[in-house]
């Protein structure tokens, strides 16, 4: 695998696209109070911290090869981004199966022609105006990809006070299948680098396509993160997304799913684990736009110290979407007196012939279980860890489709 910075020339139509959004951004200004989904957040952090949008020209070449090599997942297609720029990619001789490259190399103006007014979101507008890089994955028709795709976004001191805007596409053509892992991490894990990551990912699943996605967010405790996932699913497609959020000081994920074809299924699973002063927030929005689709959500939240964990799950079943099956579960544990958990399920159901359910709980560790474990000689910390692990077990016990190797890789990349 060649490790060197990838050069790119931005095509004109991308430049025009971005210019349209630059105008929009300057008009919209900074008033986020208008956006319902940002109600809980402290919005001054952008002004206060003065993040700079900067186009990265070159990456620090002093990054050690051995450090990078440790990040790789064997037997997979690895992509490494450093400071938001594509650094290396395993894409030799695979063009007949899958296209994996920087978005700047994927020349398809279909994806860059959307109407500027369709974006009602400040961060998406900033992203469209200023993205510098990102990945583009296109899995070809009828291909069930043999190896997982492992994407690493690594940050370091060079990113201090900067905004990285990344725009990504995952496109699965008809009858294709793939497994994708996305890792956010620091090259120097002992520093609390302060930077802002604005990440926008569009996922298109054609008929019968099958995508298994894992995201491990383990960034520095000084990092700010805003992620948007916009997923459009066609007939009979399957999307399963395991989302593990452990790092960063502030993180807000918005996951929008449009079930546009019958028999489509989406499963959204995740763990939000907040410590210290972290604010970690996930907003899922599942739209059943046609009949006979099913969706399932299972998120678990933990909040310790003075942290905050937030889960807002919204399900919309359109009028014509009969026989929809939509389930949502969000269970949360408060581990300290000063921790906060917010959870809000929201169901808008415009059809009578549906099965929808939601269950949300907030609790603390069972004190009699804690005492039982301690009465056998286990320390309080040990007993607590056992009970927290038991709480998270059903989500951590990852999908059977993933290899043991990949599972170990994921679990070791997570803080716990």
């Amino acid at each position: 695998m060649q490790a060197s910075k990838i050069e790119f020339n931005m095509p004109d139509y991308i430049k025009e696209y971005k210019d349209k959004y630059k105008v929009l951004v300057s008009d919209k200004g900074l008033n986020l109070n208008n956006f319902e989904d940002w109600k809980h957040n402290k919005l001054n952090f952008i002004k206060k911290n003065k993040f700079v949008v900067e186009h990265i020209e070159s990456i620090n070449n002093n990054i050690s090869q051995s450090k990078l090599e440790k990040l790789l997942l064997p037997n997979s297609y690895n992509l490494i981004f450093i400071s938001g720029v594509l650094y290396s990619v395993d894409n030799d001789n695979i063009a007949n199966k899958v296209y994996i490259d920087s978005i700047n190399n994927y020349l398809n103006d279909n994806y860059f022609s959307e109407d500027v007014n369709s974006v009602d979101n400040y961060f998406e507008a900033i992203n469209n105006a200023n993205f510098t890089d990102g990945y583009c994955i296109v899995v070809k028709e009828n291909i069930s990809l043999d190896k997982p795709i492992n994407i690493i976004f690594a940050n370091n001191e060079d990113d201090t006070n900067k905004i990285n805007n990344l725009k990504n596409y995952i496109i699965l053509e008809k009858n294709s299948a793939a497994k994708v892992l996305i890792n956010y991490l620091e090259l120097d894990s002992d520093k609390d680098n302060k930077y802002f990551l604005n990440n926008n990912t569009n996922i298109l699943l054609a008929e019968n396509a099958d995508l298994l996605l894992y995201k491990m967010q383990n960034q520095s405790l000084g990092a700010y993160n805003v992620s948007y996932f916009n997923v459009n699913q066609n007939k009979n497609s399957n999307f399963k997304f395991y989302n593990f959020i452990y790092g960063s000081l502030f993180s807000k994920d918005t996951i929008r799913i449009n079930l546009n074809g019958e028999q489509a299924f989406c499963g959204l699973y995740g763990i939000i684990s907040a410590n210290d002063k972290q604010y970690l927030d996930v907003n899922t929005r599942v739209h059943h736009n046609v009949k006979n689709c099913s969706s399932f959500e299972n998120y678990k939240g933990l909040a310790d110290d003075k942290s905050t964990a937030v889960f807002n799950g919204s399900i919309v079943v359109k009028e014509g979407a009969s026989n929809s099956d939509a389930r949502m579960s969000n269970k949360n544990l408060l581990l300290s007196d000063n921790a906060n958990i917010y959870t809000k399920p929201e169901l808008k159901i415009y059809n009578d012939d549906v099965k929808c359910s939601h269950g949300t709980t907030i609790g603390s560790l069972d004190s009699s279980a804690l005492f039982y474990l301690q009465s056998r000689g286990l320390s309080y910390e040990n007993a607590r860890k056992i009970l927290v692990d038991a709480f998270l077990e059903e989500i951590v016990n990852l999908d059977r489709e993933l290899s043991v190797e990949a599972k170990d890789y994921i679990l070791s990349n997570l803080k716990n």
Partner: protein
Amino acid sequence: MLEIKNLHAGVDSKEILKGVDLNINVNEVHVIMGPNGAGKSSLSNILAGKEGYNVTGGHVTFEGKNLLELPADERALLGLYLSFQYPVEIPGVSNINFFKSIVNAHRKAKGQDEIDAMPFLKEIREKAAELNIDEQLLYRSVNEGFSGGEKKRNEILQMLLLEPKLAILDEIDSGLDIDALKVISEGVNSLRGKTSFLIITHYKRLLEYIKPDYIHVLANGRIVKSGGMELADELEAKGYSWLESA
């Protein structure tokens, strides 16, 4: 080994133990009987270190240490074991992993290495079989969905694995049929000579299988009478009221 002297304790403003005195030496089997509400379970909970109780007077020494100053886990590592009257269910924590964790915690405290997986599994299976515990239960979550009898046998299984210096059995016989009673008693008796026992019970029946050295009656927060097997017979014939006025 265990010395309880003039122990006064209660919950909030209500005093439950009103001056308990008890000495248990090595290799002794003591039984505590008494009317409901006398404070028997409170005594065992206080000895084990359960939070929520206020100790207002007296002291407890175990193995030369001031027991009440230690957190629950350290008491266990010193050699104290409590078999709960109502063992709690812990979903998501496998029984067998739990056994491994607690055995290793004890071994670590003694400066020993962690136990080898294969011989340990064999030991668990053998002891479970002796207690007529279905092997399937070993792989379930701790006590989850266990019947009352299965929970009590699970408590004894843990006791056999940990080989404590002092085992407090809080109503180990409640809800057991004769067969379960026999099997549990065999388990308890197998540790005689190594472990001392403080057994809380209402019924004489258990004492036919586990022969006690001393029987005490706890009433109104104090031990009001002590004796041998003849005391158990007297209680069975007369009940507790004749003692409560004492």
